[in-house]
C-alpha cells in the first residue's frame, strides 16, 4: 500500500499545458493577426483609393467567379465518382478508389503550366484536332485556359480530391439500415442518391469543398500564370510591383474575409443534421454491382476525370521534359532548398500540431485557443501570412534578403499548415477511448507521465499521415516562398514559376515534375492507407 503524499494537497494553479498551448497558438496566429491589424489600422493612402476606384471590384468579382465556378466543377468531379466508388461495383473500381486522390500531388500552378501548353494553338490537343478535321486554327473556336473558366478548371482538377475524400468517407459510412428503409419505401436508385445519400453526406462534402475553395482563393501561382486578376494576384502586385504594403494588407483583409465567409457558409450548409447515424445495428452497405453498360460507363467517366485532372497534364510535362532534355536550368540547388525548407517547415508545423492537439485534450481553454489559431492560419492564404511576416521583418529591422527571412518562412509554413497536420493527430485521439487520461491518472501517472506514456504514443499513430500531409503541403507552397525567400534562394516551386512566367516552359517542367513526384509517393501511401482503413471498417 502506498501512502498518500501529504505534498499532493494543492489548490488549482496556473496550468502549464494551457500556457504552452497559448504560446503555440500565438506563434500560429501572429502572422495572420498582424496582417489583419495592419490592413485595418494602417491607412492605404491615395494608392488604396486608386485601387478602390479602379480595380477592387474587378479583383473581388473575379475571385468570387473563380470560386463559384471551381465549386461547381469540384462537385461534378468529386460527388459522382465518390458515390460510385463507395457504393457500386464496376470495372476498375479498386484502382479508381485510390487513383482519384493522385491529383493532390500536383499543385494547381503545375497543372496550369501543363494545360496552358497542352491546350495551346501549337499544343498537341489542337494539333490533333486540326490533323483529324483538316481545319486551320482560324476555322474553329477553342476554349482558352487563360480565362476564369480555365483557371477554375485547373483549380478544380488539382483540388477536387479534398471533396472526393470526404464524400467517399461519408458515403461509405451511410447506414445500411437507412438505405434499406429507403428502398422498402419504394425509393429508386436515383431517389436513393438524391434524397437519402446526398443529404446525409452533404455536411462532409461541404467540409471538403470549403477546404478546396479556401485553397482556390489562396492560389497565386496558377492565377498569375493564367493572367486571371484575382485578389491574390492583386495583393502580390501591390506589394511587389507598386511597393504598397499597406494596400496589399487591405486587400489581404478582403481575401481573409472571403476565406472566413467560406468557412461560415460551410457551417451553415452543415446545418443541424450532422452525419450522425441513429441505427443502433450499424452496418456498412454492400456495394451494388452495376450492369455491364452502366459499369463501363462509370469506368469511362472515372477515367475521364483522372485523365483531365492528372494523367494528361502530367504526361504533357513528362513529354516536354523528355523532348527538350533534362539539362535545362539549375536543378540540384533548388531541389535541396525545397527539401530543406519542406523538412524544416513540416517539422515545426508538426511540433505545433502535436502541441495544440495534446493541449486540446487537457482543457477547454487550450482546445479553443489552439483550434482558433490553427483555423485562422489555415484559412489565411500564404500570401497574407507572408505579408504579416514581412511587416514583422521590417519592424524588427531584419533583412528581407538574409537568413532571418528563411526562419520567418519556416514559421509561415507552420502557421499555414499546422491545422492540416493536427487533423490526423486528432483523428488518432478520437479513435482512442475517451477515458484514457483518467485511467492513467487512476494508475498514478502524473501529468508529465501521461504526456509521455499515453498522449504522445496515441497521437503518434496519426503521426505518419500528419508528417506526409505537412511535407507535401510545404513542398508545394508558392506565394509565401516567393515573397519571403532570400535573393537567389530558389525552391523548386519558385523556379518552376519563374521559368513558366518567362515563357520557358521546357525549363519549368523538371522542377514541376520533381514537385509532383515528391508529392506522389506520400499521396499514394496516404491513399492506400485511407482505402485500407475503409476496407477494414467495412469488414468489421
Amino acid at each position: 500500500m502506498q501512502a498518500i503524499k501529504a505534498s499532493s494537497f494543492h489548490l488549482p494553479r496556473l496550468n502549464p499545458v494551457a500556457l504552452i498551448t497559448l504560446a503555440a497558438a500565438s506563434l500560429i496566429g501572429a502572422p495572420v493577426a498582424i496582417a489583419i491589424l495592419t490592413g485595418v489600422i494602417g491607412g492605404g493612402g491615395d494608392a488604396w483609393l486608386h485601387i478602390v476606384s479602379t480595380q477592387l471590384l474587378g479583383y473581388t468579382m473575379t475571385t468570387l467567379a473563380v470560386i463559384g465556378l471551381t465549386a461547381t466543377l469540384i462537385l461534378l468531379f468529386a460527388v459522382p465518382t465518390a458515390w460510385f466508388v463507395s457504393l457500386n461495383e464496376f470495372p476498375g473500381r479498386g484502382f479508381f478508389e485510390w487513383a482519384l486522390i493522385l491529383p493532390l500531388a500536383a499543385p494547381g500552378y503545375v497543372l496550369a503550366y501543363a494545360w496552358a501548353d497542352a491546350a495551346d494553338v501549337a499544343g498537341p490537343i489542337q494539333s490533333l484536332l486540326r490533323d483529324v478535321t483538316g481545319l486551320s486554327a482560324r476555322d474553329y473556336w477553342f476554349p482558352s485556359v487563360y480565362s476564369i473558366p480555365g483557371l477554375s478548371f485547373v483549380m478544380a482538377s488539382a483540388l477536387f480530391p479534398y471533396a472526393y475524400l470526404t464524400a467517399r468517407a461519408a458515403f461509405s459510412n451511410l447506414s445500411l439500415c437507412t438505405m434499406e428503409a429507403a428502398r422498402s419505401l419504394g425509393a429508386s436508385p436515383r431517389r436513393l442518391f438524391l434524397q437519402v445519400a446526398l443529404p446525409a453526406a452533404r455536411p462532409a462534402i461541404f467540409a471538403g469543398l470549403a477546404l478546396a475553395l479556401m485553397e482556390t482563393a489562396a492560389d497565386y501561382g496558377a492565377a498569375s500564370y493564367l493572367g486571371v486578376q484575382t485578389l491574390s494576384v492583386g495583393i502580390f502586385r501591390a506589394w511587389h510591383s507598386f511597393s504598397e504594403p499597406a494596400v496589399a494588407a487591405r486587400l489581404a483583409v478582403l481575401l481573409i474575409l472571403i476565406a472566413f465567409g467560406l468557412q461560415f457558409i460551410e457551417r451553415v450548409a452543415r446545418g443541424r443534421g450532422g452525419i450522425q447515424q441513429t441505427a443502433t445495428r450499424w452496418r456498412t452497405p454492400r456495394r451494388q454491382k452495376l450492369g455491364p453498360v452502366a459499369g463501363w460507363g462509370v469506368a469511362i467517366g472515372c477515367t475521364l476525370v483522372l485523365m483531365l485532372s492528372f494523367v494528361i497534364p502530367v504526361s504533357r510535362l513528362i513529354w516536354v521534359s523528355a523532348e527538350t532534355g533534362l539539362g535545362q536550368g539549375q536543378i540540384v540547388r533548388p531541389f535541396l532548398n525545397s527539401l530543406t525548407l519542406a523538412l524544416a517547415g513540416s517539422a515545426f508545423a508538426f511540433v505545433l500540431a502535436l502541441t495544440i492537439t495534446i493541449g486540446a485534450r487537457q482543457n477547454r481553454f487550450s482546445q479553443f485557443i489552439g483550434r482558433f489559431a490553427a483555423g485562422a492560419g489555415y484559412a489565411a492564404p500564404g500570401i497574407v501570412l507572408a505579408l504579416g511576416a514581412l511587416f514583422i521583418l521590417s519592424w524588427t529591422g531584419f533583412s528581407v534578403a538574409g537568413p532571418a527571412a528563411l526562419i520567418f518562412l519556416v514559421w509561415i509554413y507552420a502557421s499555414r499548415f499546422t491545422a492540416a497536420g493536427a487533423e490526423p493527430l486528432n483523428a488518432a485521439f478520437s479513435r482512442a477511448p475517451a477515458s484514457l487520461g483518467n485511467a492513467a491518472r487512476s494508475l498514478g501517472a502524473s501529468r508529465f507521465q501521461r504526456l509521455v506514456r499515453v498522449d504522445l504514443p496515441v497521437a503518434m499513430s496519426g503521426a505518419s499521415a500528419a508528417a506526409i500531409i505537412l511535407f507535401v503541403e510545404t513542398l508545394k507552397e508558392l506565394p509565401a516562398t516567393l515573397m519571403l525567400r532570400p535573393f537567389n534562394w530558389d525552391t523548386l516551386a519558385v523556379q518552376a514559376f519563374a521559368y513558366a512566367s518567362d515563357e520557358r516552359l521546357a525549363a519549368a517542367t523538371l522542377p514541376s515534375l520533381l514537385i509532383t513526384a515528391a508529392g506522389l509517393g506520400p499521396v499514394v501511401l496516404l491513399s492506400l492507407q485511407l482505402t485500407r482503413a475503409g476496407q477494414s471498417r467495412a469488414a468489421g
Partner: protein
Amino acid sequence: MSKLQPIHARGVTRRYDGRAVVQDASLTLQPGKITALLGQSGAGKSTLLRLFAGLEPVDAGEILHGDVPVSTVSRHIPAEDRHIGLIFQDFALFPHLNAIDNVSFGLVRQSKDKRRETARHWLDRLGLSHRAKAYPHELSGGEQQRVSIARALAAQPVAILMDEPFSGLDVTLKSEVRRTALAAVAEAGIPALLVTHDASEAMRAADRIAVMSDGVILQEDTPEKLYLEPVSMAVARALGPLRSVRRNALPEKWQAKVPLAETYCLRPEAVRLDPAGDAMLEVVAAQRTSSLIEIELKLTETETIHALALGPFTPGPGDKLAVSLAPEFVFAAR
C-alpha cells in the same frame, strides 16, 4: 494507512454551472464489500464516482479515506495520488500497449521482472494469460474489460470504482465477465463501487445498493431490504417493475390484507397462482418469457395487475385463475 479502510462521502455536493448534479450525498464504501450506485442516466451516479476518484473537486462536503480527508472544499488530492482503481464502460485500454503492458502500466515502482510477474498473475487470475501479447483491438469486448480490471487490480488500489463496466458487453458475455471480474474484486478485499442503471445487475453483484435520483441518494441498504422496504415509490420503481392499482379495484379479501391507502403499487410477485387462492381473476393476456410466464389479470374494466408463474402451460385469454396475494410485495403509494 491500511488499504482495508472504508471510504466515506459526507454531504458532498458538486455543481455544474450553478446546478447541483450531486447534492449533499453521503455514502460509505466498506472494505471487501461491493456497493452499487443505481439510478437512471443523469441521476449523478458517475459524477459521484468521479468525486470519489478525485477526478473532480467537491463544492461542499468531504471525502475521507479512513479518517484522512482526501477531498474537501479547500484541499484536493488529485486522482493520480489516490491509488484508486477505475474501470470504465469503454475499457480505456491504451491502444499502443498490448495486454500485459497495459496491466503493467501502473507498476512503475517495481522492477521489470516483478512487473511482468505481477501482470502475468493478474492476467492469469482473469483467465487471459493466453492473450498477454494481444493489442486492445485484437481482443473481444469481454477480454478488453477483463484486461482493464486486471490492470486496475494489479496496481493494488485502495479501492476500485467501476462506471457501468459491463454495459458495453454482449448479453451472452456479460454474466460470465461480471462473475469473473467481481470475484477478483471481492478477493482483493478493498472497497468497491459499481455504478449501474441496471437494477438486476446491482442486485446480483452488490452487497449494498444506493439508489440515486436527481443528484440525491434516496436510500442505501442491502438489496433485500431495498426491494422489500423501499422508503419511497421512486426507490421501489428503481429496483423493479411495479403496477399501480386503486384500493377499490382489489378483491375485497385482499383489501383487508393491506394497510389503508387510496392507491397501491404491486410487484409482479405480489400475485400468486394458488389453487387455494382467495380470488378468481380472468386472464387478459399471457406471454412466456423464457422460464417465467407473465400473466396480465383483469381487476376491473380499466385496471389490470401482473403475475409471474412457473410451469409448463401458458394460460389463454378468458381463462379464470385462482390467485392469492403476498402482501409483502404491496406498497401503499404515498
